[in-house]
């Protein structure tokens, strides 16, 4: 018998919770200005008292007395939050539905959410084309290992593994660092040799050691694709730009017998890029990006000085604006791997 009382008390408390706060209907003009705020805890109902049923979606519950002026619904129980009423579940013949089926969604929702807190959140009345983006990036860290392939240098390929670390300040803006390691992977094309042998013309060549940049990333585009008309995956496109350094040195081809470029030159670079991120889930994505690293290159002098061992004569006196266009292919990992939406769906 004592058990039954406890269950009835619990049921009564549940019915008094302001469950539909996150799915409320639009208030009629002046409808709720005088409504009382939600209490922290519902007062216990007297034993044996039947809960007052209020339908969350109904302006006025069936069978309930008309609400007093200043409150739309739920005023009968005296615990309404604005016009949301105090429903914990629908009534079936005077019996709370949560008593019959405690697993009903509205009963579960009442347990999962602190409805008083939910009600305090600001609600943006604007309707977005996509209400919830698949991945929330704001406040998360993105770790992006990738491999970069040279796209525009037919003389020497500068392929490199790289890694990027970005922090998303907002959903569309991130700041981060990235670095590429080229040394050991610079490949002089056979075409250079053929050209030198056939035309007696040498194109000055350079190799890279590493590059590192501070970048800002902006994500203006996102969308979704239906794959094979069967499954849906999400993607976004981003623009990035930044500044950093790149270390390069010439590969001696004009006077290789005398010139040995042992030291790397540290040069300032600017980089811009555009990329596409295809999400496998909410924390893992494939990334394809085209990035242009721009800097002023120091190249080998095309003429040989009368004093060929004079290192000052090894470099061309002018620097040359150089674009190193890369195709980067990699993975994007967002940490932490889980997140909560600000509002329920």
């Amino acid at each position, binding site marked *: 018998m004592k058990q039954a009382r406890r269950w009835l008390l619990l049921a009564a408390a549940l019915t008094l919770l302001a469950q539909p706060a996150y799915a409320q209907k639009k208030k009629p003009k002046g409808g709720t200005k005088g409504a009382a705020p939600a209490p922290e805890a519902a007062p216990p109902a007297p034993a044996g008292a039947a809960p007052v049923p209020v339908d969350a979606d109904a302006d006025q519950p069936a069978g309930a007395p008309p609400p007093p002026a200043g409150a739309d619904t739920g005023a009968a129980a005296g615990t309404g939050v604005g016009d949301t009423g105090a429903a914990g579940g629908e009534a079936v013949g005077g019996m709370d539905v949560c008593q019959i089926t405690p697993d009903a969604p509205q009963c579960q929702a009442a347990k999962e959410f602190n409805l008083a807190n939910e009600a305090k959140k600001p609600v943006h009345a604007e309707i977005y*084309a996509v209400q919830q983006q698949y991945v929330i990036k704001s406040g998360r860290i993105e770790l992006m290992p990738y491999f970069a392939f040279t796209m525009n240098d*037919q003389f020497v390929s500068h392929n490199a593994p790289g890694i990027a670390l970005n922090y998303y300040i907002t959903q569309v803006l991130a700041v981060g660092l990235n670095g590429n390691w080229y040394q050991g992977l610079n490949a002089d094309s056979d075409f250079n040799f053929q050209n030198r042998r*056939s035309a007696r*013309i040498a194109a000055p060549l350079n190799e890279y050691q590493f590059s590192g940049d501070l970048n800002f990333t902006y994500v203006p585009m996102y*969308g979704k694709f239906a794959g094979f008309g069967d499954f849906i995956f999400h993607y976004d496109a981003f623009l990035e730009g930044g500044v950093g350094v790149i270390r390069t040195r010439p590969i001696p081809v004009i006077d290789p017998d005398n010139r040995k470029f042992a030291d790397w030159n540290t040069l300032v670079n600017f980089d811009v890029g555009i990329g596409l991120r295809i999400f496998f889930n909410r924390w893992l994505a494939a990334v394809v990006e085209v990035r242009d690293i721009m800097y002023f290159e120091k190249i080998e002098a095309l003429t040989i000085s009368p004093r060929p061992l004079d290192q000052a004569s090894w470099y061309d006196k002018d620097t040359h604006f150089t674009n190193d266009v890369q195709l980067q292919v990699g993975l994007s990992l967002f940490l932490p791997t889980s997140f909560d939406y600000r509002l329920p769906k």
Partner: protein
Amino acid sequence: MKRRFVTAVLASVAIATVLSAAGPARAQEIQLTGPLKGAPAVRELRLYRQGRFEIAPAISFTLLDEYRRTILVGARLNYNIRDWIAIGVWGAAGAISTTTDLTDRIDSLPAPRDPLTAVNVNHSTDPSGGFRPFANQAAKISYVVAPQLTFIPFRGKLAIFNKIFVDTDLYLAGGVAFVGIKERGDCGGQGQIACSNPNSFDLTSKSKIAPTFGVGLTFYPSSFVSFGVEYRGLPFSWNRAGFDSRGSGPNGNFPDNQVNSTDESFKFNQLVTVDLGFSFPTTPKISE
């Protein structure tokens, strides 16, 4: 005896439970019930392709050229059998051809040119007294005709700045390309003119057959008009500079004073294409 029997039965049940539980957990089918059961991923999809002809004037730009860049002007003609597959042809002609910096540098060689290069670079002078340009012997693409199949696995939409929305699809195209090129003619062989002869540097027309494949995005700002961007590979061997590079020596890697097919080298030719498409009938079907 009874205890061993019970133990054996319990162990069997435990193993059977583990096996039966572990099996379906990694391969089970999601049992959808309710109104979404069997429903397509997208309802009322605008079928921009299915049953429509598409003509798309296009401009293609070659990438990573060593001696000469080419801009090709052409069009793609497709019949979209379904929304995910199309059959068609892409054709383009080399409209503009420009030299690279390397070609300009070879042309700027001070006189006299190295006699060792007489086979590779024209040493004759034109009426103005200068050397005949090296650019004249650099090979170029004249035309490409590529019957192809286009496979469209992905279809979706793109939001830009949360304001502009455009339907998009991603496609893969593959086919066989018939490529017309202009390349330095054969010389130095039996019955052929010597490769140091100024006339040997003239370009002659040749044709190549090569595989071609591409990946592209098509955007549909309206039912009738689309635009797209495509990356295409067109690999084949050709002698871009007209040099005598191979033909003698132990591995054939040394010059032999002849220019012929052995001097061709493999090149993964790459192009980027932008196009503007028009589809007929002008109104697409809508899926269920």
